[in-house]
């Protein structure tokens, strides 16, 4: 192999590695696998928004928050030292199969679908977006107790958290202006769509 060829190959390798490193590092968080189900974290409702919606507790009971992440918040309902139940609210955006299980729901609570999972857990889907779940610890809670607990959550407040439409995609970086929106072609298209309908209306009596 000639000397120059070796140099060129070496430099190419170095340049490739450098470019690779510079491309890879800043965009690492954009690569798939960073978030749960590859759903952008900014679309998921954050945990602190759920915390005030947990049930008001009875005297003698205690509500201890144990976990809070994006799209999830969990608390333990305790009486003295024993844990009675795990209460949680989660955003089902990252877990489509969670939402799917409610399609077979037979029960309803405040007109939201309600499902019992196994002997210890009950789940409620609010506003087609948030799952409220009570998991009994120990065999003390009956299904009715769990449904009462679900009912004690601030379900209206939770439903109000659901955004109506997914948010707009992020603004383009400076220097790359938004694509031009020309009103003219759109109007033409509308007119084109309207035309066959008008025609058929005209033709109708003849047919």
């Amino acid at each position, binding site marked *: 192999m000639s000397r120059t060829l070796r140099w060129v190959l070496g430099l190419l390798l170095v340049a490739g590695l450098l470019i690779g490193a510079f491309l890879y590092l800043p965009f690492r*968080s954009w690569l798939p*696998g*960073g*978030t*749960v*189900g590859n759903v952008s*974290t900014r679309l998921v409702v954050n*945990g*602190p928004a759920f*915390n*005030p919606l947990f049930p008001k507790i009875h005297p003698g009971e205690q509500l*201890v*928050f*144990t*976990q*809070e*992440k*994006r799209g*999830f*918040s*969990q*608390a*333990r309902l305790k009486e003295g030292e024993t844990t009675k139940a*795990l209460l*949680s609210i*989660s955003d*089902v955006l990252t*877990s489509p*199969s*969670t939402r799917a299980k409610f399609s077979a729901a037979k029960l309803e609570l405040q007109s939201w679908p309600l499902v019992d*999972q*196994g*002997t*210890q*857990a009950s789940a409620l889907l609010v506003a087609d977006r948030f*799952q409220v*779940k009570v*998991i*009994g*610890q*120990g*065999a003390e809670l009956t299904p009715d107790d769990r449904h009462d607990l679900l009912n004690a959550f601030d379900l209206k407040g939770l439903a109000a958290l659901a955004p109506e439409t997914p948010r707009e995609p992020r603004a383009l970086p400076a220097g790359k202006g938004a694509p031009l929106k020309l009103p003219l072609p759109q109007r033409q298209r509308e007119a084109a769509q309207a035309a066959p309908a008008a025609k058929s209306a005209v033709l109708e009596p003849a047919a």
Partner: protein
Amino acid sequence: MSATVLERLERLPRRNLTVLSLRGISTLVPGGWRNVTSAEELISEVMGISDPELIQQVRERADQLSRARHEGYTRAMSLYDAVNRSQKAAGGLRVLANVTGGLPLVKRLANLTPPSDTLQAADLSLKVASEMLAFTQVNGLPGNSFSDFRASLNEYAGEAKVRMAALVCFDALLPLGDQALERMDGLLGRVGHQELRQLPAYAGMAAMIPGRGDEAHLNFLRRGVDTWLDWAGGFVGSLGLTSQRAVRALETTLGPWQGGFQQLAIFLDAFTDTYQHTGVQAVARRLVERAAAEI
């Protein structure tokens, strides 16, 4: 791709020195301790179910969660790994120093690693700090107020009683004596850059400790340990933990021990990974509680 939390749980040993020493320490703690190494068992315990289909769903969700880089489970695991590696390295050096102390030619090796109290205090503070960092990585900052967060920390500490007892006994009472908690403040005051730099775990953790530079990190460690000391003082008082009792508890499973308390501490440092073992179990439990709530 690294192993998920539940895979690591299933790879934990069922019976070795680590498990035996934990079992020994757990005799001091009410409620005892079970060596959970099966994901299915953990899931069915948390959800109170035995339906294999549901268990499989929970498991899939848990794996999905622990694979997501943003969720912090992998970061907590790597914190525990870093602390464990450092503990083993330091323990191994000290064992070597003890062994070679008797040989004339390699005697100088013994002077390399003085198991000084200050270093031990720094090591403990790193463990406490990594425990707090791992807690926030796994659980976020639960609750919307500071008192909520405090209650949450207390709840976690109560749940991980054996883990905390092992930390208190193996890293404070045995190497530093019964007055360890009272002495910590003074000892930590003497910890400087050099001591911190000598700990291998620090290098791995430095990026995750809030603040910039050794001074800021030291401040964080001191404050972290201060809050922990309050709690640990009550914990030691309520259980009546002493180094004497810890040794006796360990002897029930490990067999009789002839040497001093410090040697036992060094031995445990070098040959067991209690911190990592119980750490994986604690994270797995929280992860399963979340996955069970999300499916």
